[in-house]
Every structure is written in C-alpha cells, then in structure tokens.
C-alpha cells in the first residue's frame, strides 16, 4: 500500500514536545494550579485558621462565652478583653470563637445535605432525560419560585428555631442550584465521545456513571459547595439578625450582630459590631476565593 510521507516521527520523544517525562498525578496538577492563585491561597489559609480556632475554641477562649460580668459591660478592647465586652459584659473574643463553631457547623452540614440531594436528583434528570428530567426540573422551578426568605421565616416561626432545624431547612431549600448544575453536566457528559466509547466497549451503565461521568462533574460540584457554604453562613446571619436564627444565649455571628444593632452601641461601642461583622464578611469572601481557585484548578481545560 502506498505510504504518505511521514512528517513526524511516529513515536516522537516527549521531551522534543516540551513535555516532562516525570509522572504527575491528577492531584499534584490540581494542587499546583491552585497554589498559583494568590487570592485562593490567602483565602484558604484564613479559612484553615478560622476552622482550627473554632475547633479549639474551648482551649483558646479566655472566658466562658456565656459568663456575664454586668459591671464590665461594653468595655473597650483591652489586654483583659481583647475585643472588648458586650451588653452583658461577656467577652466578645470568646463569643466569636464559639459563634464560629455554630456558623461553620450550619454552613458545612446544610451544604453537605443540599449537595447530596442536588447531585442525586440532578444526575437522574441529566442521565435519564425525557419525562423524568422534565418532572424533576419543574419541581426545581417550583421551589425556586417561592421567595426563600419568606419560606424560611414561615418555617422558622412554625418550628422553634435551633441549629438542627436551620440545617434541615437550608439543606431542603438549597439543593436546587446543585441539581441544575449537575443535570447540565450529566446532560453534556453523557453524549461526550469518551462516554460513547465506553458504551461501544460494553461498559455497564453504573460503571459509566461512577467512573466516567461523576468524576468529571465533581469539579463544578465542589466549587458550588464551597460557594454555597459562604452563602449559607450569610443567610444564617441574616436570619439571626432578624431574631429568627440561633437563639441567645448561644452565640452565633449573626445573633451577635443583631445584639449590637442598637444606636447607642453603634455610636459608642463600635468594636462590638465590628467583630462579628468582619468575621462574616471575611469568611464569606474567603469561601468565594477558594471556590474560584478550585474551579480553575479542577478544570482540565485550563492549562497550567
């Protein structure tokens, strides 16, 4: 048979193509790309500090978060009370540490719940398609069309607010974004050529889903989870600010902010709202930075 001229050596050496010959695992590549993003790294470090501080709150906190010293109420930050005291003379620094536990717990637990529900329903809608898809997506539309803040307020008024109920409510309302996202990913991945290749090989459906489709949809899922944690922390603060979230004396960043919303306090004891306000802001922003960093690092299409 006639040969066409070979312009390239059929087994080209990789070095010639500028490709390293040492082996990199997927994880190493992702890590390298993530660490190149300065904001994501700073955000990540800050979050690690906050999370460790929250876990170690009983060790770090100089006072019990609920211990009142009425004589020392609203005292300015000092060596004794690093961030001052609140209306009841409780140490703000200690309360911020314990508040972090609650805010982060609500954030992580509800997102774990919403991601699980969202991934499951989104995967079914995207892979099965047809009428099943239509039904699930109409259900999503219905949930999204309810103004969630009113639903939250209604639910919280019916059931006595508490950490467990808040987690449940956020999980049951928050899965729709993930479901849409995962559906989209599954829909496009199921007709991608590497999935078709697996089908022509004869690979079983469950294997195709778990070893080809899901791992490729994982990036967007993780990113969306990271971003949602920030959102839930903000929403929990909002609810607490309205007095519908975590109930005092248990500390959360939101109810501390609510406690500080008194005009004289804002005017004379500015350090009080500053603590919880900054913590909420910084945490949410850091989750966003980390989420963005992960999105780029996990996307195989974005080169190093």
């Amino acid at each position, binding site marked *: *048979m006639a*040969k*066409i*001229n*070979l*312009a*390239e050596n*059929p*087994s*080209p050496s*990789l070095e010639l*193509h500028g*490709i390293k010959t040492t*082996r*990199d695992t*997927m994880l190493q590549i992702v890590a390298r790309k993530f660490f190149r993003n300065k904001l994501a790294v700073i955000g990540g470090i800050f979050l690690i500090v906050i999370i460790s501080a929250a876990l170690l709150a009983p060790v770090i906190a100089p006072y019990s978060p609920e211990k009142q010293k009425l004589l020392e109420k609203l005292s300015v930050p000092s060596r004794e009370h690093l961030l001052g005291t609140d209306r009841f003379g409780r140490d703000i620094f200690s309360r911020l540490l314990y508040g972090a536990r609650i805010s982060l717990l609500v954030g992580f637990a509800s997102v774990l719940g919403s991601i699980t529900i969202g991934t499951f329903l989104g995967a079914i809608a995207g892979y099965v398609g*047809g*009428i099943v898809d*239509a039904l699930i997506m*109409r259900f999503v539309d219905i949930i999204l069309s309810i103004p969630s803040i009113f639903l939250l307020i209604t639910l919280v008024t019916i059931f006595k607010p508490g950490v467990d109920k808040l987690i449940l409510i956020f999980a049951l309302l928050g899965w729709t974004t993930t479901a849409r996202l995962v559906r989209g990913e599954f829909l496009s991945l199921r007709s*991608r*050529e*590497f999935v*078709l*290749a*697996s*089908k*022509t*090989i*004869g*690979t*079983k*459906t469950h*294997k195709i889903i778990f070893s*080809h489709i899901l*791992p*490729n949809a994982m990036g967007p899922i993780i990113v969306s989870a990271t971003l949602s944690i920030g959102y839930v922390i903000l929403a929990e603060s909002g609810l607490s600010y309205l007095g519908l979230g975590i109930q005092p004396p248990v500390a959360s960043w939101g109810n501390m902010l609510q406690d500080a919303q008194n005009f004289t306090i804002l005017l004379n004891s500015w350090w009080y709202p500053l603590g919880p306000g900054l913590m909420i802001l910084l945490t949410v922003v850091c989750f966003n930075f980390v989420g963005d960093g992960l999105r780029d690092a996990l996307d*195989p299409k974005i080169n190093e």
Partner: protein
Amino acid sequence: MITTNELEERNATVGHSDTLLELKDVKKHFPIKTGFLQKNVGQVKAVDGISFSIKKGETLGIVGESGCGKSTAGRTLIRLYEPTDGKIIFKGKDISHLSEAELRKDVRKDIQMIFQDPFASLNPRKTLRSIIREPLDTHNLYKGKERDEKVEELLEKVGLDASFINRYPHEFSGGQRQRIGIARALALHPEMIIADEAVSALDVSIQAQIINLMEDLQEEFGLTYMFISHDLSVVRHISDRVGVMYLGKMMELAAKKEIYSNPLHPYTQALLSAVPVPRKKGVAKRERIILKGELPSPANPPAGCVFHTRCPAAFDLCRQVVPDFQEVKDNHFVACHLYK
C-alpha cells in the same frame, strides 16, 4: 440493468459468506420534544432509509456534507442508537433490537469505534493504563499482570512508548491521542472499526500518519473499516468502495475508482467538482458545479428526491417520486431518476 430481485438471487447463490455487516432500509429519527410533558412535535430524519453491506476486510468510505447523517448512521449501526426502523445484520444475525446485555455478549467485542475529537474521546481523569484496560476489564480478558502487559503491547502497536502507561491524555498531542483511541479500539481484537472523522481534527501531516497506521493495522489484523469523512481526498486514499450520503439517504455507492472517475449522481458530480484534481494531459478540465439553494432541514426534507431542490438536472418526476436506490451498473448503486 439488474433488478433488486435478481440481485438477491445472485447474492443467495454466491452466499453471504463475505458480507460482514448489512443494513436494510435503516432509519433513525430523533423526536423533537417540547413542553411540560415532553410532547412529540416532529422528527429529525437524521438517517432515513439506507441499505448497503460491508464486506469482510474492505474499507467502505462514507462521504457527505455536515449534517447529512454520517455519524448517526455509524452510531446506529453500532447500536449506540436504537434504530427507528430497518434491520442491521451483523455476521448473519439481526442485531437491530438486541438488549444492552445481549450486545455486550455478542457484538461489542467485534465492532469498535474511533472518534473525531481526540480531546473529547479520552476521559481526562484517567491514565492511559485505565483507558486502554477498560475493554479488557469489561470483558474480563487476560488475568492480573497480563492485562497491563497487554496494554503496553497495544501502546507499542500504535507507535507509542510503553512507558507512557501512567500518563494522562492531556500530556499528549492530538495525533498521539488519536493513537491512544486506536489502541483502545484494538484491545478487543474487533473484526470491524468505524472511524467517524478520525483524522478530520488533525493537521494534514498528522492525518497522513494516522491513516498509514490504520492501513498497517488493517493489513495485520484483517480489519474491516467504515471510514466516515467529509474530506473526499482522504476517503479516496483509504477506501475500497465509497458511499455518498445526502440528507439522511444514500445517493450513490460504488467502487472507489468508479465513483471518482465516473460519478453518476448529480450530487456526487457536484461534490467532486469542488475537489481540486491534478490536471493530466488530455483530460478535460472538470467544470465546477455550484449547488444553488440551502441545504434543507432533515426535520422537513423535500418530497420526492430529497436532492431536487438543489439538483441542476431535476425534472417533474423528481418532485413527486422518491427514486429507488438501485444497481445501474455492476456494483454501482444510484438513487436518481436519470438512470432507469
């Protein structure tokens, strides 16, 4: 002229021994669905009744413009899609409606596919080991360490280094990835490989390498190819016979030499007139035929001959009656009213 009946008789006497795959009036229509309950509001007739057979060891080229149903035809005959109508007969067995489990047992091992996009056809999160092992794992071929040895052997077969086994697809160029795809398709020792635009996404020099590789492998393993492409010169190089598709239908099918030197169908003539050919002394320059009008939508194909809206030779009959796809010369099939 030979009628279809006579043809069938002749085939019956010769026997189907050398026919590997046969399509009989195969259709694939995609429903167009909208609304809350996904109501059916129409159909895209991507493949609308095609018949042909592929002989063992040959390369059948399929050409046609984008959207004419080439990929759908390939994917339907390999049963990635359920055919809407018609019969697909592989090694004498009707596989048109086999279940996925039956396909896995009987068919999957024997027909494999190479895809167009070397970047989309390999899972970016798997190593070459895991990609090429997948067919061996699925069909439980070889044991333990032997499987990895087999993977290394396949890599070398397609001109890659066996030491690449732990690498990821993104580390390779388009041509090298296409070789990985070929290694995966070869792993099960298939009888037939469908190559759907297998070189269209590659640079011209790399195209040549991949085609050479495919030809070498065909010789070594006695492979049968269905080579789908919109590139007439590539198809001309590799094919034994060539089929021309237009709007879901086969317009003409004949031996390569015959098609390129004596195209009968007005559509084939127009397609070929657009390809620059080296001029030989004494051969009249081919007149370039420019097709008028737009390519109709496969959701709403023209009545009669689907090509009549653009055919320079169309006459009244063409607008009403669908021309039969028939053998007008020895092994030269045409669907056109000009040839009766």
